[in-house]
């Protein structure tokens, strides 16, 4: 990834990556809502979330964040080892 960027190029890149990170976060957020809603909510006899549904959603969010972190770590490790493999060749 080392492209030998100047300072102003570096700044431009950082700005773009920040935008992408925000977009990525919105993506994660969207998937989270979809997943937790689909998994937890199925009772439409009332307009308000039931206690059961709220609890389920809360646990779903906690678990999803833990999953996200764990997979993030695994992803970085796997990526690093693949990169190392490729550089050996």
């Amino acid at each position, binding site marked *: *990834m080392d*492209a*030998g*960027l*100047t300072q102003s*190029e570096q700044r*431009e*890149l950082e700005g*773009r*990556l920040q935008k*992408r990170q925000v977009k*990525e976060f919105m*993506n*994660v957020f969207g*998937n989270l809502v979809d*997943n*937790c809603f689909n*998994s*937890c909510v199925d009772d439409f006899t009332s307009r308000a979330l039931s206690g059961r549904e709220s609890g*389920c*959603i*809360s*646990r*779903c969010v*906690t*678990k*999803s964040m*833990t*999953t*996200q972190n*764990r*997979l*993030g770590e*695994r*992803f970085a490790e*796997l*990526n690093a080892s*693949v990169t190392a493999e490729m550089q050996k060749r």
Partner: protein
Amino acid sequence: MSFLGFGRSQPTSAEKIAAVENEYKVFAEMHSRMVKVCTAKCVDRSYREGDLSKGEAVCLDRCSAKFFEAHQTISEQLQKEGAARGFGGGM
């Protein structure tokens, strides 16, 4: 498709930035797909608990490793078959 050939000595500023940004995009997308797929395969959807069970955690670890390997295998095979059928370009 890149037209950076041996004739040109240096990629332009815009090309360098775009290359790094694109690499980030590729990784971010792959990460996102991996999370979706491995969550579906490993995490119990009843959400009776907020913590990952040991079984789920181990499943996630193995799923991510398999996902990477599958990604590589598919990529290599596509390149081979693409080359055999006469398509150019890499992944």
